[in-house]
């Protein structure tokens, strides 16, 4: 069965979000901004003023550092664009969503269904995963224009807040829905049925590691 393809605005209506199903393929139109640990720390911990009107300008937060440069004349060149793993940002996301009204969190690898149920769904937000990873050149083609780069001086090119105008930017895969279900967990569960057969005959290592036991009074031998 071929996945469904959908075009979606980066300031989506609640109805458009409710329509999305796990595994749908999405292409985005409108303004999107990059924000990862650097932006989160600056905005939430250092309480710096966010240099955009959110969410009216954009409700799409991309966990991304682009392969891009700022030219001597101040213009921008953006080559490839792909996401970075999102699970590391769970610490900041609830507060970020509340503050910015982000409805689309776009990144790599998704979050847990616990994250989705506890703060994605209450904020009317879903997670879109990049594909591959990563289809950097295809996503780069979807960048119509780089509108601004905020906080480059403070955070550097990789952590700066890039504001991108998207034109049918994609593909992305819908990885959470309004039930708070998680596409990756659904797939994990299917694969789990096979684990016993694949591991048959293999042996646990003679020398254990902490983490295989969480009791630090244990020995590893």
């Amino acid at each position: 069965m071929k996945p469904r393809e959908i075009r979606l605005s980066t300031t989506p209506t609640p109805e458009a979000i409710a329509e999305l199903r796990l595994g749908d393929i999405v292409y985005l139109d409108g303004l999107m901004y990059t924000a990862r640990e650097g932006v989160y720390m600056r905005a939430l911990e250092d309480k710096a003023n966010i240099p955009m009107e959110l969410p009216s300008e954009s409700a799409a937060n991309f966990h991304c550092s682009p392969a891009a440069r700022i030219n001597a004349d101040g213009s921008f060149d953006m080559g490839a664009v792909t996401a970075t793993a999102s699970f590391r940002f769970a610490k900041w996301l609830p507060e970020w969503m509340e503050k910015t009204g982000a409805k689309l969190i776009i990144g790599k690898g998704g979050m847990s269904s616990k994250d989705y149920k506890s703060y994605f769904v209450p904020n009317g937000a879903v997670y879109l995963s990049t594909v591959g990873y990563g289809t950097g050149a295809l996503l780069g083609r979807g960048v119509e224009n780089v509108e601004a780069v905020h906080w480059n001086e403070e955070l550097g090119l990789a952590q700066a807040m890039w504001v991108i105008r998207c034109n049918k930017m994609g593909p992305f895969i819908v990885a959470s829905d309004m039930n708070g279900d998680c596409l990756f967990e659904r797939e994990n569960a299917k694969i789990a049925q096979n684990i016993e057969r694949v591991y048959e005959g293999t042996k646990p290592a003679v020398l254990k590691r902490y983490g295989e036991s969480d009791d630090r009074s244990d020995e590893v031998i």
Partner: protein
Amino acid sequence: MIPIDLIQKTAESLMDKAAIEIPEDYLDGLKKAAETEDGDLSSFVLKAMLENYEAAKEDRRAMCGDTGVPRWFVKLGNDARVEGGMCALETALRRATASATNGVPLRPNRVHPLWRTDHNNNVGIGAPEIEYGFEPEGEWIDLITVHKGGLFGTDYRMLFPSDGIQGIKRFYLDSLMAFGKRGLACQPAIIGIGLGGSKDICMTLGKRASVLRTVGSRNSDPRIAEMEDEFKELGNSIGMGAMGFVGKNMVIDCNIEVGYCHTGGMPMSVHAFCLSSRRAVARIYPDGRVEHRTDPDWFTPYQRRETVEWDPMREAAE
């Protein structure tokens, strides 16, 4: 004498090629995988990746936004001489790395581990890494750049002789399961396994097995070559494909490299060279000839030699 300007110019073009052009051996491997893949979502992902490589080449833009951490492997024929000496060579490679980061552009990934300071050019303390190898004959120098991506997919474990092959299999599967879920390893990948050596060399062997050997190559030891086939199939029998979706393609190839280790141990490392398996190679001769290729051809009989002397053994073989 190999002109230093030619080294820098060639290095710059290698940076560009590595970032933009997927090597033919990996591309062929992925095309085969895409033909056999029947998981709906994994199949979609592989097709999107194949389109992505085309888009990168057409537009001359990097294939992935995470352009990895550029590094260099340099191999010299025994009679090679570099204008300005080896420090000039290192400077040329650092210059090429910085200028290509701005030129392609690449993502300036390299930062200080504690202060997170960023030179915006992928150059800093110990970056790019430059590693060396030598061959008994030749006046040439091989420049190999690898832009390995990803923070996931790599692991090390001290195993012991009593762990045996079944213990090796378990750790291999553990690594694929741990980093394959949600596609953190950006599979299907070239999986490199390092067995033996001291701890640091075990990591080096595994990394080189993944990034310096091509898809379809086999270890010169026939029993290790058999293990490579078996491990490739084992990885692909998990039922996991691209992005951790249900599928049958996790491992494009499995390469194993070994080194002699402490008699009591059997250290093992696992590495994943991702869907953007970026590598580019050129051989430069003193007369100014430059030959580009994608096979690093690193693991020659000389690199895998077991004996004290080299020449006498070779003469005996002839």
